[in-house]
C-alpha cells in the first residue's frame, strides 16, 4: 500500500480484495493488515509528505480497498466482542429508557476494569527502557489523540453534539495551544530525546496497537457506526484515570522528566471529567435522540475494552518475552496475566 502510493501517485490504487486478504488469519493482530488500513485512514488525517497526489484521500479505488479491509476488520471485531468474557448486558434489564439503559450498561462494563496489567507493570516493574517502549507504542495514538472523535461531531446533533464539543475542547487544550493533549505527549517524547513524528512509531508498532487506533477510525469515519464511536469513547475515558495515575507513579519511580509526568498528571483529572461527559453527556443524550443506536453504543464500548485489552496483552507478552528469553513467552505469560490483567491498554483521552 505504501509502495503503491509513493510509486504511482496518479495511477489507480486499488488493492484487489483477494490479494489484500489472502493470508490474513487473524486481522486484529496482523501487522500488514492493520498497517494497510492505517495508511488508508491516515489519508483522512494528516496524510503523508511523500504522497503527492492531493486526491489520494478520495481516490475511488482506494475507497474500494479500504472498504474491503474494513469489512474484514469489522467482522473480526464483532467476533471478538461476541467472545468477550463478560457478556454484553441485556439493555432492557437495566432501566426504563434507552438513556438509562445505556448509562447503566456503560457504568457496569467499565466498573469491572481496575488498573490494567500494563499500568501495573509500568507502575511497579518497568525499566526506563520498557517505559519508553510503551510511550513509543502509544505514540501511534497519542500524537493524533482525539482526532478520530472529531469526525463524529457533524454526525450527531443536539445535547450529544454539545457534550462532545465540550469534551473535545478540553482535549484540544481548552483554548491554550500549549495544553493540546497531542502537544503534551509530543513534549513528553522530546524530553526523552524521542522523535515526535509519527512515522517511526507506526513502522515499529504491534498489529494490535494499530488495530486499537484503527478501531476508532472505523467507528468515526463510518456514519452508520457513530453510536459505536461514542460508546468506544465512553469506555476509553472511563478506564483511563486510574491507569494514568499508575503510569504517573511509574514515571516518578523511574525519575523520568517532568514533561512525562505532566502528560499523565493532566489525564488523571481530565479523564475523570471526560468519563462523565462521555457517558452521561454524550451517550445518554445520543440514544435519547436516536434510541436505535443503543446497541451500537454498547458494541463500541465492548469493542474498546476487548481490542485495547488485546493490545495490552501483546505488550505484556513482549516485555515478558524479552525478560525471559529462555521461555516461549508468547504462551508463558499471557495466561496468568489473562484477559483481565491485560484488559486495557492504559491510554488517555
Amino acid at each position, binding site marked *: 500500500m505504501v509502495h503503491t502510493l509513493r510509486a504511482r501517485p496518479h495511477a489507480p490504487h486499488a488493492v484487489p480484495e483477494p490479494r489484500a486478504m489472502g493470508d490474513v488469519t487473524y486481522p486484529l493482530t496482523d501487522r500488514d493488515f492493520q498497517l494497510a488500513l492505517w495508511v488508508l485512514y491516515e489519508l483522512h488525517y494528516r496524510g503523508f509528505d511523500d504522497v503527492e497526489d492531493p486526491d489520494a484521500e478520495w481516490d475511488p479505488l482506494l475507497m474500494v480497498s479500504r472498504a474491503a479491509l474494513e469489512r474484514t476488520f469489522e467482522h473480526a471485531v464483532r467476533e471478538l466482542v461476541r467472545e468477550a468474557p463478560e457478556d454484553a448486558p441485556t439493555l432492557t434489564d437495566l432501566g426504563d429508557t434507552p438513556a438509562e439503559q445505556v448509562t447503566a450498561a456503560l*457504568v457496569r462494563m*467499565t*466498573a469491572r476494569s*481496575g488498573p490494567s496489567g500494563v499500568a501495573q507493570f509500568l507502575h511497579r516493574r518497568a525499566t526506563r527502557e520498557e517505559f519508553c517502549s510503551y510511550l513509543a507504542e502509544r505514540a501511534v495514538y497519542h500524537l493524533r489523540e482525539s482526532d478520530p472523535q472529531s469526525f463524529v461531531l457533524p454526525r450527531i446533533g443536539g445535547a450529544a453534539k454539545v457534550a462532545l464539543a*465540550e469534551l473535545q*475542547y*478540553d482535549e484540544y487544550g*481548552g483554548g491554550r495551544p500549549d495544553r493540546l493533549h497531542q502537544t503534551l505527549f509530543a513534549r513528553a517524547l522530546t524530553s526523552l530525546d524521542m522523535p515526535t513524528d509519527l512515522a517511526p512509531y507506526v513502522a515499529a508498532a504491534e498489529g494490535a496497537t494499530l488495530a486499537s487506533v484503527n478501531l476508532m477510525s472505523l467507528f468515526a469515519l463510518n456514519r452508520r457506526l457513530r453510536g459505536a464511536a461514542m460508546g468506544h469513547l465512553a469506555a476509553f475515558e472511563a478506564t483511563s*484515570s*486510574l491507569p494514568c*495515575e499508575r503510569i504517573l*507513579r511509574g514515571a516518578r519511580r523511574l525519575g523520568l522528566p517532568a514533561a512525562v509526568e505532566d502528560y499523565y498528571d493532566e489525564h*488523571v*483529572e*481530565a*479523564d*475523570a*471529567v471526560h*468519563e*462523565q*461527559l462521555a457517558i*452521561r453527556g454524550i451517550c445518554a443524550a445520543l440514544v435519547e435522540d436516536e434510541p436505535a443506536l443503543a446497541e451500537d453504543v454498547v458494541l463500541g464500548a465492548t469493542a474498546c475494552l476487548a481490542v485495547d485489552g488485546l493490545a495490552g496483552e501483546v505488550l505484556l507478552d513482549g516485555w515478558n518475552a524479552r525478560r525471559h528469553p529462555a521461555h516461549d513467552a508468547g504462551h508463558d505469560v499471557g495466561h496468568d496475566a489473562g484477559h483481565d490483567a491485560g484488559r486495557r491498554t492504559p491510554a488517555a483521552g
Partner: protein
Amino acid sequence: MSTRRVTVTECPGGPLLIRGADEVVGIDGTVAPVERAVVALCRCGRSDRLPWCDDSHRDRRRRKKP
C-alpha cells in the same frame, strides 16, 4: 453586561460537574483555581487530588496508596 452562568451537575455514584466556576475553596481554606471549562469535584472523599475527582470512587480497593 451579561452574567456568566455557573452550573453544577450531579453524577450518580460519581463527582459533581461544575461549569463556569473560577475557584474552589477547600475545607482548609486552600483555593484551587479552576483551569478547565468543566471540572469534576470529588464527592466520595477518596480522591488523592481533592477537591478534584480522580476516579478513586471506582477503585474497589480501600485507599492505600504509596
